[in-house]
């Protein structure tokens, strides 16, 4: 998503303080820590971490096919004695957790740090979950930086901790760490010897008997980590002058607390799991009452209550979203029975919403325009730019929950259909990278269980939503170097889709797409329609000559607006009464030629042929024909 944020790599010998995002700071520290292997799957807000790490030649970096594989790669390197790193967004750990939950038993040889970026405030995610649970669930330590400097410093500390306790360490970030820029003092790379892999089946082969012997070691490690938390520099007590309320807080919430209550005592947890109960008890004794400020679930609060602490938290603070000063100040004033200092307010002014849209000439535009023409269909969607197809003007996506889920949901919609819906068509829409991430298995399930689903595989050769990252479908690696490229048609055939049911269609050839969709949805067996035009944000995309509208020829039908292209603008509206007596709304349009890249999608629905190439207008008006040469990227 945040591809607009430039990836800036600081010089190898750096000046004292640099303006860095939390993601850049983590990447720098990964390099400084002597890490040799780093892996990730892109996901907002974590994406830039690996993009920045990849710029350091000393580190092997990869885009993995999904987060579970990325963690397994990092773990393998850690078994081999290398320091290794992996980064993911919060929902990525749901996928990776199967590996995490057992590597906590084996532990690691080389240091392994896992950065998990929670999207507190839901800037670009399907849910808002609290990754601090994973520390507790997997019995691994968890660090929470509060700004870019700490993102850097805590990453280094996490590697130290990981090697001292032979345990994977979670570095918990949030959007407000990843994407905030602040000044950071950085250091140099510290190369480390690599011990090499030591064969030890009792440790690395987790069969029940071996795992059973590792369990007590894991709990003993947690006991030692709790003792470490009591003395760790990562946990800081700041005794203030106003002792009415003491705050226990972690991560970016600390900055909001400090900003809002400059004189209050604060226990800032950097190593926030396991909790240092004895230190917290001493802190509590110095305050009249204790308030826990944590984003987002009441984890610290619940554990403190279980220990008999008298604390307040989520009974006065929200259970979701950021705990910024405008949330904290009124809640605490109310708790203290004080009136909030009256602030002059500037009233909000109502303005239309501006939801994200698909890009000008995006190949998905034509797909959704076509899907919007289908009747009696349920469309099972997935995670990516094409999720936007649920919105106006297409209204052509009916469900979306998690990576790859379009496949299984579609099969379930097919098998669970009501008698009244027996003729309903089930279509699944999934992007190339999402398909490779977690969709392939779902398609295999559809085939194996003889589902009646038409799959639209939108191959745009990029992870579009996060800024056009490469993947096994793009034919390039994380450095942009040529890499083996998946052949989607052969892949889906290998999964068992019959050859006659596999079609590769140009996403800009709407009549062919519509015809293929109509035919395949009638046939009661699995089909896959692969669309094959590149994302307009990547270098594979080549812009063509822009179009414009001949003003006199535009009849105001508004059909072109239904494509949903952001380069089409209404110049005036009108309402006329037809001979039949029916009232019709007209919208006359122009094309923002500076933005138009000539995909030609809007030509297809334009009945009066009012849309022409910009340069044809400068010439004597000729008949302009719609033709195949208008297709970009081919």
């Amino acid at each position, binding site marked *: 998503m945040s591809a607009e944020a430039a990836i800036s790599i600081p010089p190898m010998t750096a000046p004292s303080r640099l303006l860095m995002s939390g993601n850049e700071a983590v990447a720098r520290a990964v390099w400084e820590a002597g890490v040799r292997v780093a892996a990730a799957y892109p996901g907002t807000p974590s994406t830039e971490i690996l993009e920045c790490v990849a710029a350091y030649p000393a580190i092997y970096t990869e885009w993995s096919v999904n987060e579970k594989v990325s963690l397994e790669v990092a773990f393998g390197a850690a078994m081999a004695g290398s320091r290794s790193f992996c980064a993911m967004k919060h929902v990525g750990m749901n996928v990776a957790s199967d590996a995490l939950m057992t590597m906590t038993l084996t532990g690691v040889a080389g240091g392994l740090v896992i950065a998990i970026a929670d999207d507190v405030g839901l800037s670009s995610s399907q849910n808002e979950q609290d990754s601090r649970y994973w520390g507790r669930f997997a019995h691994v330590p968890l660090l929470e930086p509060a700004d870019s400097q700490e993102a850097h410093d805590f990453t280094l500390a996490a590697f130290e901790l990981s090697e001292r306790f032979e345990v994977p360490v979670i570095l918990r970030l949030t959007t407000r760490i990843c994407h905030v820029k602040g*000044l950071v003092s950085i250091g140099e790379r510290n190369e480390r010897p690599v011990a090499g892999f030591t064969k030890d089946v009792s440790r690395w082969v987790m069969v029940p008997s071996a795992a059973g012997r590792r369990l007590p070691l894991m709990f003993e490690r947690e006991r030692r980590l709790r003792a470490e938390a009591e003395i760790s520099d990562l946990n800081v007590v700041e005794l203030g002058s106003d002792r009415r309320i003491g705050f226990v807080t972690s991560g970016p919430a600390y900055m909001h607390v400090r900003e809002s209550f400059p004189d209050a005592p604060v226990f800032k947890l950097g190593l926030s799991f396991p909790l240092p109960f004895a230190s917290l008890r001493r802190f509590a004794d110095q305050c009249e009452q204790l308030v826990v400020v944590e984003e987002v679930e009441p984890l610290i609060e619940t554990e403190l209550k279980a220990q008999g602490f008298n604390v307040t938290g989520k009974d006065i603070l929200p259970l979701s979203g950021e705990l*910024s000063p405008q949330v904290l100040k009124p809640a605490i004033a109310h708790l203290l029975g004080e009136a909030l200092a009256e602030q002059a307010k500037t009233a909000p002014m109502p303005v*239309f919403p501006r939801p994200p849209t698909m890009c000008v000439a995006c190949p998905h535009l034509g797909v959704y325009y076509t899907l919007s023409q289908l009747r009696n269909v349920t469309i099972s969607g997935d995670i990516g730019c094409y999720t936007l197809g649920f919105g106006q003007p297409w209204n052509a996506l009916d469900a979306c929950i998690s990576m790859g889920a379009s496949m299984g949901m579609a099969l379930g919609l097919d098998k669970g259909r009501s008698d009244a819906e027996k003729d309903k068509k089930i279509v699944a829409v999934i992007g190339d990278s999402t398909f490779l991430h977690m969709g392939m298995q779902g398609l295999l399930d559809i085939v194996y269980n003889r589902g009646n689903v038409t799959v639209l595989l939108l191959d745009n050769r990029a992870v579009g939503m996060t800024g056009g990252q490469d993947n096994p479908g793009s034919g390039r690696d994380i450095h942009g170097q040529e890499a083996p490229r998946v052949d989607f048609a052969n892949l889906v055939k290998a999964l068992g889709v019959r050859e006659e049911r596999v079609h590769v269609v140009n996403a800009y050839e709407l009549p062919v797409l519509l015809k293929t969709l109509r035919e395949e949805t009638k046939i009661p067996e699995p089909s896959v329609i692969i669309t094959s035009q590149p994302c307009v944000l990547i270098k594979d995309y080549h812009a063509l000559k822009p179009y414009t509208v001949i003003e006199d020829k535009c009849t105001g039908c508004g059909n072109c607006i239904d494509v949903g292209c952001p380069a089409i603008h209404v110049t005036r509206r009108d309402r006329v009464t037809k001979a039949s007596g029916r009232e019709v709304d007209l919208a006359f349009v122009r094309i923002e030629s500076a933005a138009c890249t000539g995909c030609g999608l809007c030509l297809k629905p334009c009945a009066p042929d009012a849309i022409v190439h910009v340069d044809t207008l400068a010439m004597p008006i000729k008949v302009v024909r719609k033709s195949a040469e208008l297709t970009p990227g081919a």
Partner: protein
Amino acid sequence: MSESGKFDTTNILVVGTGGQGVMTATEILAEAAIALGHDVKKTEVAGMAQRGGVVSSHLRFGPKVLSPQITPGSADVLLGFEAAEAMRWRHMLRPEGLVLMNTGRLVPPIVELGLYDYPDDPVAEMRAAGTHVFAFDASMIAQELGDIRLGNTVMLGAISDHLPFPAEVLERCILKRFASKKAELVELNRRAFAAGRAAAEAAAKAEAAAAL
């Protein structure tokens, strides 16, 4: 400048839509503040910014900055890259704060579809609500200079006389970005910066004259 926590912090909110260069402009403002020895934090509420959605970038600088977010009602300056977006974020401004805004419009598909209306006159509506507004057509200025992408340099020129440091510091930070590229880019940006500065000054005079 506004009181925030214990420290004297300047709050600048830069708003627009995805792809306009809002985040880059804020980054350059941050660099200028750093050059003068300030502590700086910059943060975005970008959402799915690249897809033409709403972008608001918070910049806070001063001796020591804690929370990266500007609290509603405490922005000193609101720099609006798009007319309706300036209106959307007006509540972030402190009552006596200043709006510097592009009157250029970016109309989203949701409005073109007839589902919502674009405000008739964002500048007049904000003024009627008592907000101090300097408005100018930065998109037009950039186009006249030959490239719509110069819009963010025009906007930075416009804010340059409303910062707690000299305009030249900001100008140097912009031109430094292009120094390694073509010389003509440096010159174009210099002109865009000057044009933005002049536009804001003219807008200030126009507002003062209207208030008489």
